[in-house]
């Protein structure tokens, strides 16, 4: 898998694979925990900030998540890819404020026309630069109408009917846009996997 190295830091090719890191963390390896943090915290913090739109809440989320990983490493042996699990966990945690009625930024990076911002110059190592770059490209390729609905769904806690009410679209149209957008992303992920396997 071809991966670009994060500016000024170690790329995954130089570090250990995430499953191996998690395995060490399960055995109480604190250095592995620090490496996991260094590798993934820019993604975790960026994602939490992108959903909450609030630095304080994003910081809380970040501390909660890594403490959770450390304390419950033995119990966490996800069958899903570790990065997918991490991203889902961050989102879930970041949405907690909204479930309590606090305002949110609603996944601004997914909205149509959102600027493709370069990572902070000092960000250092990134979680999986190749995969993240492909994800950004896949989102950028989606039609605006699909992005708009997916941004609302991913960055919020609304049901499909509630999204329909907010956007003034019929619920059926919202469902279709979700299906088309998500299907396209799923197909893209499948193609990447096939390609990666053929390279191995």
């Amino acid at each position, binding site marked *: 898998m071809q991966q670009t190295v994060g500016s000024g830091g170690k790329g995954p090719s130089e570090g250990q694979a995430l499953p191996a890191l998690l395995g060490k963390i399960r055995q109480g390896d604190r250095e592995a925990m620090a490496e996991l943090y260094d590798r993934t915290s820019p993604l975790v*913090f960026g994602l939490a900030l992108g959903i909450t739109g609030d*630095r304080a809440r994003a910081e809380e989320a970040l*501390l909660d998540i890594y403490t959770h990983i450390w304390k419950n490493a033995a119990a966490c042996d996800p069958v899903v890819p570790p*990065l997918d699990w991490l991203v889902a966990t961050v989102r879930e945690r970041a949405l907690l404020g909204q479930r309590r009625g606090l305002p949110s930024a609603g996944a601004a*990076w997914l909205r149509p026309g959102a600027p493709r911002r370069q990572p902070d110059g000092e960000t250092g190592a990134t979680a999986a630069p190749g995969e993240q770059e492909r994800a950004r490209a896949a989102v950028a390729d989606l039609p605006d109408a699909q992005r708009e609905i997916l941004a609302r769904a991913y960055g919020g806690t609304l049901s499909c009917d509630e999204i329909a009410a907010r956007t003034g679209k019929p619920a059926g149209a919202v469902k279709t846009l979700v299906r088309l957008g998500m299907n396209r992303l799923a197909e893209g992920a499948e193609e990447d996997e096939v390609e990666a396997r053929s390279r191995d």
Partner: protein
Amino acid sequence: MKHDRATEEIRELAALYALGALTQQEARGFEIHLAEGCGVCRAEQRRFARAAATLGLAAEERRAPEYLRDILLERIEREPQAPDPGAPQSTGPEEESGRILELPPAEASPAGGGSGRHGFGRSLPWLLAAVCAALALGGGFAWKSARTDAGRLRAELAEAAEGAGRTGDELRTLRARSADLDTILEMTRRQGVQSTHLVGQPATPANSGMLLWDAGRRRCLVIASFLPAPRGQVYQLWFSTPEARVPVGVLEADAGGRILARLRTPEGLERALSAVVTLEPAPGSVSPEGPFCATGSFR
């Protein structure tokens, strides 16, 4: 009923499920169907969980403040891993004052399976995190972490005050945090300050916090994260002595339920055994009438 192929309808359901955009009832229905062993729907659910991960992976990376790394690393230095989340924690006499706040063993949420299930039962406010990290260290080392944080915050504040690129809100947040930490540090440096963990009750398990009490100076400090109080009601703190429950004061919370309250304690509380927080009609009661929302005991 198991499906033999993926229809548009199945895909819609699975995609909405992966985004957590089904109603609870719909999500439960889909989960039951998956549990019944429909391979077609299981495959769609996995595909769309990957698609949802793509949405998250596309997020911009942002550098987290350096002090968070320190807090985390100091915390895991002392924090035991949980081989069995159900096992009771041992609390020796040394640990008792140190073990102030424990995160509940949060359930790992499977990727994309957000509907109706939350990976974390409660939010840990930043300030609590910092204080916990400090308290977990114990002994002469105890406040190094919090002091470091305070120093960093001050530096960050000075830098932010000069330079552009910070919003007014961010500046205010920084200033407030710096002041809060200073208050806590000042309080905890003193001899004879007692601390207790405020634990939520069965009806309010999400409530959590800590209380520092300087009996000599008759001051107490409460740092907590409670569910926001219902309209027209307030959280009120009481100290229980063998004779009575004595009102100490009302705990003002922000919109997110976070509390940082500095209160004066009445005289005659030397024999206080515990602290109790109840929910009372605003602006507070003379004797506790509302439900207990959190309690903590003094040694």
